[in-house]
């Protein structure tokens, strides 16, 4: 509960984050492998993961990588696929304010989908969102960067059954957070609208702008429905 020692939120956040970290580790290995196949050595791919820490932006970047380097196209694509973080950051205001500016901006600098979802959950359950974000950031960052390095050293994907299953663990963990927010029929309707808009716009919009558009549409639907 709020007011409980910080370490309660930190340990709970760490526990919640473990499946995400495992999934990120595997995704990082896949990225390292893809990057090595287009000519990045393990060190440079790891450097990119350590500084950008964004799977979608990095995969977009390496897919567009060429000679001459399309710098503007890569940066625009990276901004587009990360567009959802703008809304996520705005939602975190008011939830992490009791911490110092360096502490707040540190966790924001490592914000991920999983971290945001877990911070929202922490607030619902009366825990401090900041330590949960911190725990998730540390674990997923270590998984992503470490995974990239290992993937960069491999010549071929060691995709055993366990690793394939681990790839799906991140989505599965995000999915299980959904039913908590489905308290009323209006919640289900708004989420359905969000999914429909996101999937439909996915056919036309680049990056993850369709995710953002879906979320905004769903929220607007929710506001029109009874409380």
């Amino acid at each position, binding site marked *: 509960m709020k007011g409980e020692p910080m370490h309660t939120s930190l340990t709970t956040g760490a526990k919640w984050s473990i*499946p995400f970290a495992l999934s990120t580790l595997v995704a990082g290995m896949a990225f390292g492998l893809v990057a090595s196949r287009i000519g990045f050595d393990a060190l*440079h791919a790891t*450097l*990119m993961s350590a*500084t*950008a*820490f964004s799977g979608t*932006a990095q995969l977009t*970047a390496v897919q567009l990588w060429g000679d*001459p380097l399309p*710098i503007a196209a*890569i*940066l625009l694509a*990276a*901004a587009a696929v*990360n567009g*959802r973080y*703008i*809304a*996520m*950051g*705005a939602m975190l205001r008011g939830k992490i304010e009791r911490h110092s500016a360096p502490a707040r901006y540190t966790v*924001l*600098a490592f*914000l991920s989908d999983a971290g945001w*979802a877990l911070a*929202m959950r922490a607030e619902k359950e009366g825990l401090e969102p900041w330590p949960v974000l911190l725990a998730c950031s540390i674990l997923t960052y270590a998984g992503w960067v470490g995974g990239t390095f290992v993937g960069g050293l491999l010549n071929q994907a060691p995709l055993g*059954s366990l690793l*394939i*299953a681990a*790839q*799906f*663990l*991140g*989505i*599965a*963990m*995000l*999915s*299980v*957070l*959904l*039913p908590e*927010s*489905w308290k009323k029929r209006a919640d289900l309707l*708004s989420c*359905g*609208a*969000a*999914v429909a*808009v*996101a999937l439909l716009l996915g056919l036309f919009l680049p990056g993850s702008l369709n*995710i*953002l558009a*879906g*979320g905004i549409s*769903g*929220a607007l*639907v929710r*506001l029109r429905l009874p409380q």
Partner: protein
Amino acid sequence: MNSLAWILLFCLAIVCLASRLIGYWASGLFPLSPKINRFLEVLPAPLLSSLVAVAAISSGGLAGIATVGTALAVMVATRSELGSAAAGAAAGWLVSSAPAWF
């Protein structure tokens, strides 16, 4: 890597960092009206829903859908998070591996 590639890596890091900070920073510049506050209150569930749906489709189509569907069904039935996530991941693995069995 040539110097242009290093510049690109640096700029990519800045773009990724800015996208994470800008929403939080901008929302603190102006006092938010009650309408905007209410909007931000109801935004998480639809945003998470669209994130999951898009991730499910892009992570392997049927396998992704099986992952999400199974995880949701088991979660609603059992309220066990880790069990539901494990069941979802197992369903994703089963569907993605199925073609190799035939």
